């Protein structure tokens, strides 16, 4: 059984089953509104896969994924605002929120985002490049553990504050009221469904990339760096390079999730990406199991579902639940839900691969 699950056939079966659920069952069974919600949750799940890689496998507790999520989201939002303005008033016209803020001319850094190709390239390259730069700056100097966690958190705080101060980026209110996504009308339910399919497709691709990274030699090295960084260094590897790859991959995943989040939800504001939302990304990963591949996805979906079901009706109880989940899951069940399965296997005296968290 366990051999089947970890083998090649098991992988294909797993992906096929996930595809069947995401592309077949969900659109058939869920109403348009609920499918939209699920699409939003899938965005969180994509971020969670990246955190699972950086934190679960690499031991880098990144409390600032909101930065990369926000970068992707804002880059996409800029393009959509430009496209909307162009559609309404012809090329070169100012997006509506800028008119309200009294900005008469499009700022220079907005101009290239009129091009869809430039926008997509920017979403794929800018956040990743930023993560690589920051990663080298931090990891080469062997800043790690709690220092890194605090720095990543401060980054999220600084990024949110920076955006609040920028009127030409929507300020406190962020960017919202989009009409077109690369020419597709967002009011049309069919196009909403298309966005869901895109999000689901991205999730599967991201999972495949993460799986490949885990199973490769690189994945072994990453776990080795997590568990004994000095020993890996003594063996002649540069631990910083290994960490930067995982950090950059997590950043890329978050950026792509942010980019698809914007047309699905229709708004991005500093409140979506600051310190608290960034650390909330962690909760799902912790619950699902930071070391496993699919655990973070399940955890993120479960947390998002619970949040949407509970937070409006019982805001107070939901905050208590979040706090207690952090306490109970991390203190008592550091491996998350995924470790329960591993524990039962151990109970049956079957060999298990170690998924010990850092």
């Amino acid at each position: 059984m366990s051999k089947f699950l970890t083998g090649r056939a098991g992988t294909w079966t797993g992906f096929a089953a996930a595809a069947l659920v995401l592309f077949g069952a969900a659109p058939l069974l869920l109403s348009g509104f609920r499918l939209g919600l699920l699409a939003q949750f899938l965005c969180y799940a994509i971020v969670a896969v990246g955190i699972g890689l950086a934190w679960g496998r690499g031991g880098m507790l990144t409390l600032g994924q909101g930065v990369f999520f926000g970068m992707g989201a804002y880059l996409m939002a800029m393009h959509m605002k430009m496209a909307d303005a162009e559609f309404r008033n012809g090329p070169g016209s100012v997006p509506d929120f800028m008119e309200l803020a009294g900005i008469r001319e499009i700022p220079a850094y907005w101009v290239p985002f009129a091009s869809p190709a430039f926008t997509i390239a920017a979403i794929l390259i800018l956040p990743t490049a930023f993560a690589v730069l920051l990663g080298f700056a931090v990891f080469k100097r062997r800043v790690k553990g709690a220092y890194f966690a605090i720095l990543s958190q401060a980054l999220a705080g600084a990024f949110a504050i920076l955006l609040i101060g920028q009127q030409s980026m929507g300020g406190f209110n962020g960017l919202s009221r989009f009409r077109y996504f690369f020419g597709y009308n967002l009011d049309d339910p069919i196009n909403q469904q298309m966005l869901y399919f895109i999000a689901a497709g991205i999730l599967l691709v991201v999972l495949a990339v993460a799986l490949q990274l885990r199973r490769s030699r690189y994945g072994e090295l990453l776990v080795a760096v997590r568990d004994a960084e000095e020993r890996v260094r003594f063996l002649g590897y540069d631990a910083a390079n290994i960490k930067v790859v995982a950090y950059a991959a997590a950043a890329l995943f978050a950026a792509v999730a942010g980019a698809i989040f914007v047309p699905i939800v229709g708004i991005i504001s500093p409140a979506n990406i600051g310190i608290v939302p960034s650390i909330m990304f962690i909760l799902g990963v912790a619950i699902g199991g930071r070391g496993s591949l699919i655990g973070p996805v399940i955890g993120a979906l479960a947390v998002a579902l619970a949040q949407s079901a509970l937070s409006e009706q019982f805001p107070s109880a939901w905050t208590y639940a979040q706090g207690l989940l952090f306490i109970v899951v991390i203190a008592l069940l550091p491996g998350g839900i995924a470790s329960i399965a591993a524990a039962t296997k151990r109970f049956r005296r079957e060999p298990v691969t170690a998924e010990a968290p850092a």
Partner: protein
Amino acid sequence: MDLLVGQLFTGLSTGSILLLAALGLSLTYGQMGVINMAHGEFIMAGCYTAYVTQQVVGDAGVSLLIALPTGFLVGGAMGLILETLLIRHLYHRPLDTLLVTFGVGLVLQQVARDVFGAPAVNVTVPQFLRGGVDLLGTAVPKTRLFILALAIAAVAAVTLVLRFTPAGRRIRAVVGNRDLAETAGISSRAVDAGTFFIGSGLAGVAGVALTLIGATSPTTGQSYLVDAFLVVVAGGMGRIKGAVVAAIALGTFQAVFETYSTASLAKVGVFVVIVVFLQLRPQGLFTLRTRSLA
């Protein structure tokens, strides 16, 4: 000249606030290597202690004098409970402690919201702290001077306790080398609990002081926490000296940067400065010399 004095004082004042918030954090982090994200909520508890005391006592001056020691006890007691119930059991898992204490902070924030309500409350500033003092031609608010004095007093007290009391000697021994200290008969558990009590108590005191310059809401502590952490990171873990220098440097930098730019850019500036600074000194300003690899 006026501008310079004004900026220097603003920097010193911002620095002293940062220092008050970071001092306890530096103590507990240095001792146990534990990042306590609930520290901000202990500050918030100090703020509400001042608020409640004033509701009970009435007179602003007397209530401030009562609230300062009470805030210390409230913060300290909360820290002691947290240490005994959770942190002690999460040894050698510093990152997990960070997340667990974040959860504790979330719960405490919600408790404050349920008890005192989400809108901010205000504490009346006592008569003798209202208005300003003329300092080299610049008007300086008395409340800020009071906080500066309080920060100096807190640093002095912590330094004296660490250096000259038996308890302080035990704390320094455990910080220096935990295993060796235990071998010498020091109960590191008792020392941990004591340090946590003092560190969290300082957060409570900081909270009481903060009510003099701002309103109190359930998220008050959170807004100070990240800056306080940056002070600890830049100062070097567990070094009081480092925390003092880093707090004043960051405070001044932020104040000066703000005059030439905006408050939001100043925050970003602080972050960049710290990342660059860590390139030069990855372990912070002052470090304990150890032979460990970490």
